[in-house]
């Protein structure tokens, strides 16, 4: 279980996260949604140690996340946009990541085959299309078989086929007991994948609920309507 306890973060004038306390259950898929600038990425970056919260604690299986990087062995991260060293080939980038993760000996090469990355191995990273870069990015997140996946808008930039492959992969990992957190703006995608939904608004936690509970509570037919209902109720437009 991942627990965010009273996390606050300010960037100068901008209050990006306001006292967020929320927990993410192990073995489930949790979707974080909210409008642009609501703090989704910042919250994930706090978990990954990229952003240092001004106050609050993050617990990972009851251990405080601190400056020691070992805890990140458990996390596979897929950033929104991936840029790799321009003049390295795809093969070299993969080798570099494997070198750095010498603690891992068994790799998950499934996405490598499904995304046909073997065709790209000798290409320099700057020659890759945005979609291919995103495939490489996804592959690297799953490569080291972590316990937790943190995926920031994972399907953006992927073609429909690749997007489907990735969604199937996410579901498969869940069946193996992995914890998955992802952000998305695509409601049907969230409806299809997520068990739990966290909604952030202006850096505040609006709600965290199991998807089915949310739908039942609002008396609506599907997630899309349920969210619209909640937003209307809390006096927020879109």
């Amino acid at each position: 279980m991942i627990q965010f306890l009273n996390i606050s973060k300010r960037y100068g004038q901008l209050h990006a996260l306001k006292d967020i306390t929320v927990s993410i259950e192990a073995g489930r898929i949790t979707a974080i949604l909210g409008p642009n600038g609501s703090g989704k990425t910042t919250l994930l970056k706090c978990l990954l140690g990229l952003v240092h919260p001004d106050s609050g604690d993050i617990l990972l299986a009851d251990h405080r996340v601190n400056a020691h990087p070992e805890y990140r062995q458990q996390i596979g991260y897929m950033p929104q946009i991936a840029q790799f060293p321009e003049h390295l080939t795809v093969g070299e980038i993969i080798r570099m990541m494997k070198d750095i993760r010498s603690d891992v000996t068994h790799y998950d090469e499934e996405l490598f085959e499904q995304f046909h990355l073997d065709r790209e191995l000798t290409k320099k990273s700057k020659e890759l299309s945005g979609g291919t870069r995103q495939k490489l990015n996804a592959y690297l997140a799953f490569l080291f078989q972590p316990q937790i996946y943190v995926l920031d808008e994972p399907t953006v930039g992927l073609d429909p086929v690749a997007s489907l492959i990735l969604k199937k992969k996410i579901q498969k990992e869940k069946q193996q007991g992995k914890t998955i957190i992802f952000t998305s703006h695509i409601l049907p995608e969230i409806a299809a994948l997520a068990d739990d939904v966290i909604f952030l608004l202006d850096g505040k936690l609006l709600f965290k609920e199991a998807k089915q509970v949310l739908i039942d509570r609002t008396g609506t037919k599907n997630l899309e309507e349920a969210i619209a209902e909640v937003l209307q109720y809390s006096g927020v437009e879109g």
Partner: protein
Amino acid sequence: MSNTLKIAKYQFFNVLRTRWVFVVFALFFFLTAVLFYFGENEAKVLVSLLNVTLIFLPLLSVLFGVFYVYNATSFIELMLTQPIYRSELYGGMWLGIVAPFVASFVLGVLLPFLVFGSWAGYAGAFGTLFIVGTALILIFLSLGMMFAIFAEERTVGMSLALLLWLALTVVYDAVVLYLATVFRDYPLEQPLIAAMFLNPVDLGRVALLLQLDVSALMGYTGAVFREFFGTSLGISLALGALLLWVSIPVFVGLKRFAHRDF
């Protein structure tokens, strides 16, 4: 192999394939070769290389340091989500960009020199050129990286880097010259030696000129400098000053890098 060296290894190949490193190599290679080809002797080649080394090398280095960090921002993010320390990444990036630059500068001068030149009587001077050039690369690359870590805006980092380069290569000398003229009635040797230590470009210039016969033209002041650099204390102080000039931006940049949000 430590994480720092692993990162350095891949960055080395990445940087080696950039145009920047090629430009440094080609510039020094062709300049040295052409000067020798037209029958210049070693001393004249050195004087010509001196100015390119003191002006151009710092400019390229500081700009590349800034560019590199801005271009690597999202790669830095990805690396920092791996189980590595921030200091390991910073050290790896630093080594990985410094090494190809130094190699292309040293090889660019050395290769034509081995073909056309002669060590006899000039080993010290060329040795000094390599040390000064290497020191300037380390200093200005570190400064460039530091600016980019501090200033999140690309234009701000770039402007700071250019301003610093201008200050150290052009403005500083003008100010020192002006002060020397104003206070010409006073004994200035000691303050001038002190002023030299505050600017690595000046330090490099004086150290190099003293290796050549042209220093005889500098008269009494030249003699004072020559005396100073003739002692092991003087050389140690000069090397110490260069080392400080490298360590301070590396340390300050790393400190900021360790605490910054990405």
